């Protein structure tokens, strides 16, 4: 039988060993994120250019799924091919998981109100969908506050322009790693996409 002090010591050692692997104390991943990913995604996943998504506060399962999609090349939108196919080529699954945990723990970017002309239409589609076009309410999967869950991405605080580009890519099947989103966007107009993006990003 192991004494309690030794149990505590072992538990402490185990936590110490685990810390670098998962969570904010993962120094190796923090270095990878700040020295490589930050070039496009910003120092804490808060990218400046809407060409690159904000990762801060994004759901870990979603980030991990995307990294795997880049690696197996099932996500093939233009920027994915130009940047991410190469960037993830040497990432193993453990590193992907730890990167996902790292960014999920960062503080998400606060949403900002979008184009006032879009907000009302965006809110309507986001909350109620357009039944006639087969567009379900975005909130039904992405949550009332666009926070997402697990492998369903957080949209709140994202660059609206980036969201529009993804909706276009789903529709055109350029981004073919989310068949559900192809169905959702199939009859969606560009104007509707802009409205949804402005509203969801503002949450």
């Amino acid at each position, binding site marked *: 039988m192991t004494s309690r002090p030794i149990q505590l010591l072992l538990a402490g050692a185990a936590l110490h060993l685990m810390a670098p692997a998962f969570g904010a104390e993962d120094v190796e991943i923090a270095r990878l994120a700040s*020295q490589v990913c*930050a*070039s496009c995604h910003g*120092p804490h996943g808060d990218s*400046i250019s809407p060409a690159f998504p904000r990762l801060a506060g994004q759901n870990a399962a979603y980030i991990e799924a995307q990294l795997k999609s880049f690696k197996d090349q099932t996500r093939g939108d233009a920027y994915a091919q130009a940047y991410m*196919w190469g*960037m993830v*080529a*040497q990432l193993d699954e453990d590193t992907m998981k730890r990167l996902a945990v790292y960014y999920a723990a960062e503080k998400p970017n606060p949403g900002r109100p979008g184009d006032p002309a879009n907000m009302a239409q965006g809110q309507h589609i986001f909350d109620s969908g357009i039944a006639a076009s087969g567009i379900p309410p975005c909130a039904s999967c992405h949550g009332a506050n666009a926070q997402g869950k697990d492998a369903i991405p957080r949209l709140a605080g994202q660059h609206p322009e980036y969201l529009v580009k993804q909706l276009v890519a789903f529709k055109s099947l350029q981004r073919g790693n989310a068949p559900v989103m192809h169905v959702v966007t199939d009859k969606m107009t560009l104007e509707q996409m802009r409205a949804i993006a402005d509203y969801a990003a503002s949450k």
Partner: protein
Amino acid sequence: MKALRDKSGAILASLAALLFFSGFSAQSFAVPSFARQTGVACEGCHTVFPELTPFGRSFKLNGYVMDNLPQVKGMTTDNKEALLLNWLPPVSIMFQTSYTSTSKPLPDVSGIGNSQNGQVLFPQQASLFYAGRIAPNLGAFIQMTYASDSGTFGWDNTDIRYADHATLSGKDVTWGVSLNNNPTVQDVWNSTPAWQTPFDQRSSAAPTPTAATQLDGPLTDSGVAGLTVYGYFANSIYAEFGAYRSSPQGFAGQSGAGPLDSSASNVVRGAAPYWRLAYERQWDRSSWSIGAFGMDVDLFPGGGTALAGVTNKYRDVALDTQYQFIGDSSIYSMQAVYIHEKQTLNAFAGQSDTLNTLRVGGSYYYQRKYGGAVGYFSTTGTTDPLLYPSGTAVFGSANGSPDSKGWIAELNYIPWQNVKVALQYTAYNRFNGGKTDYDGAGRNASDNNTTYLLGWINF
């Protein structure tokens, strides 16, 4: 007859010198081995080569080491990286071919009439690069160039750098050390001389103005090596300091003590300090930078005179700025630089001169495929017949003035990201001090207007 022969000889020598130097100052950048190493397409680092995007600037500041290729690794017993080599060497080839036509042909070296106009250079320039990671924090951009005018391979732009990160006041600092052979070749903004777009590609077969500040090429042409240390704080504030010392090439076989003997020209006395400060702000799809840089150079004229005693002193201070917008379809950018040079020429006649260079340019690209650029350039300074003498056709100055001004306009077609075709026109309002008969031999500034068609591939 002797006078004619002397004149022809002078023209030939001037032409040879001009072609030699301009051939090696034609800049090139855009290296497929970086793309192979990172797995990122050219568009990641370049708007259109050679102009760098924010990601490209980051890649360069980080020492060209980002990689996504299988590596040959070596580890120490305490589990630290002792070797990190790409499985395949990061080697690339660049090939440029061109057609050049001046408004009026250049004088024939025989002194009778003019030479044939419409020069095809195949290649104009061909380069072999080693560009990529060398060790965990060490990378290099090394360019060897064959220039058709000299018919030889020569050492071209080189930047070997170590880079790492530190934290200051909770913010990231990218810091590094660069060993390079051309002041500003290590710079990451395309508003400094080594890589200033759209002025970086010029014909090596057309005359270019004689006067240039030290930062604009003469110092590099005489052969220098520099060591600089830099830091980039929070992706916004950049500071760099270093020094350059003469490093002439091709001295073997000369009499004397070697590379620093008096057979070399324009030898740096001691070391020439170099400094650079810049600020960059990024927002949305835009970035804007403003900066200053400068150099203090003491040069022994050499060329047969002892490398001792008085020197010619050059103090260059420059301001530069760049704006970029990188959209999915449209990309536009603007670069400007102003260089002021104070010359105290104690090794000549003790005169004090100034030279001021301004270049402003802008470019637009659609879909990174079709583009155009326009730029204005001006170099003005103190009239000094000793420094800018008359008596040489095309390259002389009848009034001793260094002033040259003009415009450059180009159209670009980039069928693939590593292939560029450019049609460029350069128009001179003033050349080596004058608009008409500037050389005293009847040549007008506009006679040097140049049509230049460039084909450029990298693989």
